């Protein structure tokens, strides 16, 4: 059995990383749209640095062979640090402390969000998400380039119209009889 905690984190994750949001409406045609998505074949270790209290920026991004070895390393102002797996990062989106959520949100502004979560969509991380222009350039030229070139590109069909978000906020009781 999967826990509901894991399941309920997914919408939050999508809301953060999706450029287009959860709800999309018909664009006048009843035919499905075809979109190309990139699925990573390499993992990523993203290091974020706390630049002011609970504010983080990306210091470094390096690829690793296996996507399951992906990590977020958070270096704090008090010289302590934490390491989070991809799964932990997902859970922290909703159940983590404010600080942990800040860590994940900051890491997600780089390739961790754009590629590890398959949200490239022709966009690229902004320099402002990094501790310096040098860190941004290095990430774009090495980890970003490598991950983009090794990613599997697949065509997906998405419905041209559709609605979601029904029943939100109703998880406080059982609906079984």
């Amino acid at each position, binding site marked *: 059995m999967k826990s509901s905690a894991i399941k309920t984190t997914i919408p939050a994750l999508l809301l953060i990383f999706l450029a287009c949001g959860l709800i999309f409406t018909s664009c006048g045609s009843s035919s499905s749209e075809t979109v190309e998505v990139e699925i990573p074949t390499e993992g990523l270790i993203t290091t974020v640095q706390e630049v002011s209290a609970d504010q983080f920026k990306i210091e470094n991004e390096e690829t690793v062979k296996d996507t399951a070895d992906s990590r977020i390393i958070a270096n704090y102002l008090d010289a302590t640090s934490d390491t989070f797996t991809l799964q932990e990062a997902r859970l922290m989106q909703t159940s983590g402390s404010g600080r942990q959520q800040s860590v994940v949100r900051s890491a997600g502004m780089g390739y961790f969000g754009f590629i590890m979560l398959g949200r490239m969509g022709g966009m690229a991380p902004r320099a402002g998400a990094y501790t310096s222009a040098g860190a941004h350039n290095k990430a774009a030229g090495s980890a970003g380039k490598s991950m983009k070139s090794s990613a599997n590109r697949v065509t997906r069909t*998405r419905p041209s119209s559709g*609605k*979601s978000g029904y029943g939100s906020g*109703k998880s406080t009781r*059982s609906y079984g009889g």
Partner: protein
Amino acid sequence: MVQENLPVLMVDSRIVSVRPLDAVIVKDLELEWLTTGENEEYLSNEFLQMTTKEVDALREASEISYRILLKAAEHAVKQGEWKLLGIPPHAIDLVKYSLANEMDTHLLGRFDFSGGMDGVPIKLLEINADTCSLLAETAYIQEQQWKEEEEKLGGSPYNPLIEELIERFRRIINQNPDRDPTLLISTLGYEEDWINADVVAEAAREAGFEEVESAILERVIFSPEEGIFLEEEDGAFVRYDFWYKFIPWDFIAYEEPNLFDDLERLIIDKKVVVLNPAYTMLLQSKALLKYAYDLYPENPYLLKTTFSAADFPDFKYVAKPIYGRMGENISFYDGKPEPIYKTEGDYDDLPVVYQELAPFNFDLEGHRYQPSIFWTGMTAGLCFRRQDDLVIDDDAEFVGHIVLTPS
């Protein structure tokens, strides 16, 4: 029939204690939620000894009750009693369509009865036809506790729930050869509902669904023209040909009418098979029990059920909301114009039915026992709950059972 002036045997003589399940086993089953926190006392660690005859009688009561309820639905619909049944105007077309086209796709439900032991007559309290709980307790906990102490307990539970659920899913797959065996399962997110939904997921995989995915309702994308989709983390939009919702039809009809309209189109255009089918909303409505009683007042399983308290001049009845759940908002009258007991809940704005007081079996501690029979188009398992209150609700204890064949 029990005579008023004869003492009824207490169930104590048929109670056998069992050891609590080891925490490691519960963890392996991923069912800690059922045994910890507020649920710490939920599993009674006692089994009831039942005879084959008693279990057969409960199964027969279920089979007859189901046929009666379908007849009652047909009758009430012919009379156009939608409003009294609790079916809002925008839901009528789909329920009609479902009655005409989906009668063989009722996946799973559960009857709640009173009586059934020591000569106390079996009475139908209600059927949880649309979304029913107690699946994991019955299929896994009861089974595991029995296995741990099989020698001491003797016999075995009447518990073919998983096997019958698999069989029902196989039939549904075979009835739909043009559809991909892909199943999406959704709840509104409450942990207990996921626990029940996961039992359904396991049976679906065993039955041959190639893709079985779970997602909270708010993630599911409904495209009336194209089907039901889920957006995966890698950006894929996966379409599912079957949707099992642990979300009541009445919730969808009243709380999310736009979703109801989309589902109506998707179902009638054959873009998706929704389980349970929409007609189970009718069976779930306790108002249907009134029509069943009107049609078959002499049936031994039916309690007198009406739309008016005045039909009970002796003030001996319960008032139940037509779509109430888990024993919520029930008023218990026992001979006086004011209720002697009331439960709280979320359903106090719903119309009610009035049902005569049901005869229960008790133990010496005052627990009343409620047998439940699962239904997958046929009977599919038995479990009990008990409580030392007038109404079995969320505070009930789960009680296992074994069936002993007379030597």
